[in-house]
């Protein structure tokens, strides 16, 4: 029984480490597209952590929100921003 506790806590420790490192990298990534990808990774890592903490409900939400919707929204925002700066550059070239 103790062995099972130890395995479970080892899993939790590894997942916490994964989440912490990924979160730190996500906070330090300066460029939004790359950050969106790291945030997707953070969502996946959080999913693992929640599962080993025996919270599959939260893990499922995190999977939907953190790994899919939030990064997608950031990508869409960046794309819109890119599009307007492309237009802008085209205009400047025409002048």
């Amino acid at each position, binding site marked *: 029984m103790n062995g099972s506790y*130890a395995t479970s806590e*080892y*899993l939790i420790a*590894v997942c916490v480490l994964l989440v912490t490192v990924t979160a730190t990298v996500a906070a330090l990534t300066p460029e939004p597209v790359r950050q969106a990808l790291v945030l997707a990774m953070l969502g*996946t890592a959080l*999913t693992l952590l929640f599962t080993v903490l025996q919270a*599959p409900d939260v893990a*499922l939400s995190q999977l939907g929100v953190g790994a899919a919707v939030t990064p997608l929204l950031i990508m869409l925002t960046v*794309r819109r921003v890119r599009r307007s700066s492309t237009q802008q550059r085209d205009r400047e070239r025409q002048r």
Partner: protein
Amino acid sequence: MNAWLVASAVLLTLGLPPCLWQVYRRTPQERLAGLNLAATMCSAILLLFTEGFNRSSYVDLPLVLAVLAPAGTLVFARFLGGQAAQGEPD
């Protein structure tokens, strides 16, 4: 202590860090590749948890991941490709 949890621990410890490394380090396209492998790895780990924690309903998690991960990757790939097509060197 059972084989399934040990296997998941092995994958967590040895399998995921290379994917993370890839996600942290390189260009968006390569990060995407790393993310893709990380999702596969997580699917495997979550599958192993099902048996490891002896809860058959945990299998919904890898199912959802298997459904969402390719979809997400395809969207990202499309945007990363489209971004390049509009002449936005990165």
